[in-house]
């Protein structure tokens, strides 16, 4: 039955040995003890689960059994080397190694090794932590992050085009209107005007029109990249965005508060685009509370009529009225780095989803609150034909 640490417990277990036994078998991490020759003396329960061997199968065997071929061949040497020279390569440090399951499958663990001097000679205690769950998580996050980076890059290009088109459209519209106003006036006034002037006005108008068409084409090109709409859960969108922002922020001293209403129906969105908005808002919020006395951000979501409302509030100083005027304008960032497209893009993404992005600027000791409003997924309008 339970003879897992028989090597340690040759005689009747004393109280402290019983306690040790219990500790070993309760540990979540694998714990394995070997002697100077690499012979396995003890193999706890977690090790049994990790490697697929019962303790009875491995106790007395060489530790090389648990190693991939290429490490196994070198292990005797390195053990011997250490015993001779006392030069520790692994003892006292934790490191990532690959080990071998009973089935032959290899997997990563974090291994730390300690040393014990016993009457029976030196023994080594290895503690092994399975890295597979962490690896899977890391890979998932890496994938998400590179997807976001890629998307942000493609999107920045697109949005830059859209922003330029939008910004140029304004003066161009004014130019066309002015030209047409003169033309209409000239035509109304009749004969008094040199016909060449009317002719030139016509040409100028056509050129302005041509410029407008170029912008139109540019916009169509940009907008051709179809957004991939699907039904998505608001909670998941926030979770993933938060995860992306917090990735690598180990020293975060900001309190992140969540407040999500239950049972919010799904929204019909391009999830990556909406994540981009949320990541943007959360990053900005973390940035502004950095130097505040009180440091928190609060992300809430709730249903309001036919919309889902997601709010990101912060404990920062709020937004000054000077900055507020241009907040959602392209190329207007007050930050030193960046194009100032973030909020402009976010607003235009929200609007192209049939929603909007707005802000309550706060101030006077109140932080800013950004509100992202998205229409609920209502399964589309009924079809005109059956």
């Amino acid at each position, binding site marked *: 039955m339970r003879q897992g640490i028989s090597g340690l417990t040759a005689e009747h277990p004393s109280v402290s040995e019983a306690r040790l036994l219990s500790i070993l078998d309760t540990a979540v991490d694998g714990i394995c003890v070997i002697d100077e020759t690499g012979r396995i003396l003890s193999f706890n329960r977690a090790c049994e689960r990790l490697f697929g061997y019962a303790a009875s199968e491995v106790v007395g065997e060489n530790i090389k059994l648990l190693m991939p071929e290429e490490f196994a061949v070198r292990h005797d040497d390195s053990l011997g080397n250490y015993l001779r020279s006392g030069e520790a390569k692994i003892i006292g440090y934790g490191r990532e190694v690959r080990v071998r399951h009973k089935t032959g499958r290899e997997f990563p663990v974090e291994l730390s090794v300690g040393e014990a001097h016993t009457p029976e000679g030196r023994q080594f205690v290895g503690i092994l932590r399975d890295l597979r769950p962490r690896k899977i998580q890391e890979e998932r996050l890496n994938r998400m992050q590179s997807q976001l980076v890629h998307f942000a890059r493609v999107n920045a290009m697109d949005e830059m085009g859209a922003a330029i088109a939008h910004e140029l459209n304004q003066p161009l519209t004014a130019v066309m209107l002015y030209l047409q106003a003169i033309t*209409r006036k000239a035509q109304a006034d009749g004969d008094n005007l040199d016909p060449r002037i009317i002719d030139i006005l016509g040409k100028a108008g056509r050129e302005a029109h041509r410029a407008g068409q170029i912008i139109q084409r540019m916009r169509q090109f940009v907008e051709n990249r179809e957004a991939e709409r699907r039904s998505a859960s608001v909670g998941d969108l926030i979770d993933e965005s938060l995860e992306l922002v917090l990735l690598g922020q180990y020293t975060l001293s900001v309190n992140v508060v969540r407040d999500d209403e239950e049972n919010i129906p799904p929204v019909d969105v391009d999830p990556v685009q909406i994540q981009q908005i949320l990541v943007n808002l959360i990053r900005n919020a973390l940035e502004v509370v950095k130097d505040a006395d009180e440091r928190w951000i609060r992300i809430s979501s709730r249903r309001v009529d036919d919309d889902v409302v997601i709010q990101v509030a912060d404990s920062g100083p709020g937004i000054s009225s000077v900055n507020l005027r241009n907040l959602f304008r392209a190329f207007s960032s007050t930050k030193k780095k960046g194009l100032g497209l973030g909020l402009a893009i976010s607003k235009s993404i929200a609007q192209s989803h049939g929603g909007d992005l707005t802000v309550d600027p706060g101030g006077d000791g109140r932080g800013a609150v950004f509100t992202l409003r998205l229409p609920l997924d209502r399964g589309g309008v009924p079809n005109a034909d059956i």
Partner: protein
Amino acid sequence: MSEESNLIYIVDDDPSVRDALSVVFEMEDFRVETFDNGDSFLMAAARKEPACVILDVHMPGRSGIDILKSLNAEEYPAPVFIISGQGDIPMAVNAIKQGAFDFIEKPFDADTVVQRVRDAVDAMARRGDLGDKMRNFPGAETLTPREREVLEQITGGASNKEAGRTLGISPRTIEVHRARIMEKLGARNAADLVRIVLTGERSD
């Protein structure tokens, strides 16, 4: 609230677009008042009733959609044109659901915008009891005055184009209203819609 039959309100954050539109409409003998933000427009809109409103939907600060909601554009007597610089349909559809009369895409020319405004003003003047018959069927109370007008056109056999011409709005806008009406009344198709209105029977 006083009524001003040749007054146009222009709401746009871009000063040169505001000015150019003013020049065009003033030359057509309209009176023009301009606003660079939604709040000052809303204040003016509560005092006086212009013949028409031209509203840029993409403004920093309060968005055009938000302004339409505050104005309660559905019930506001003057037609509100949305100008959209980015041509995105979901936003335009949303604006119309919020009671915008129609939308005009940037860049536009003077002839178009003047013609559209004149048509709208004329259509509003003709409005009178248009759509009044559209009250005696289940779900009628859920429709806006504009939707009732569109419904009357549709059930009268008008095409989107014809209905648009009568009501002074574009066929695409008629399309938006039609989808919205069918959704509200639970009609599966145009024939179903006519049946609901004429017989007073709900679709099952």
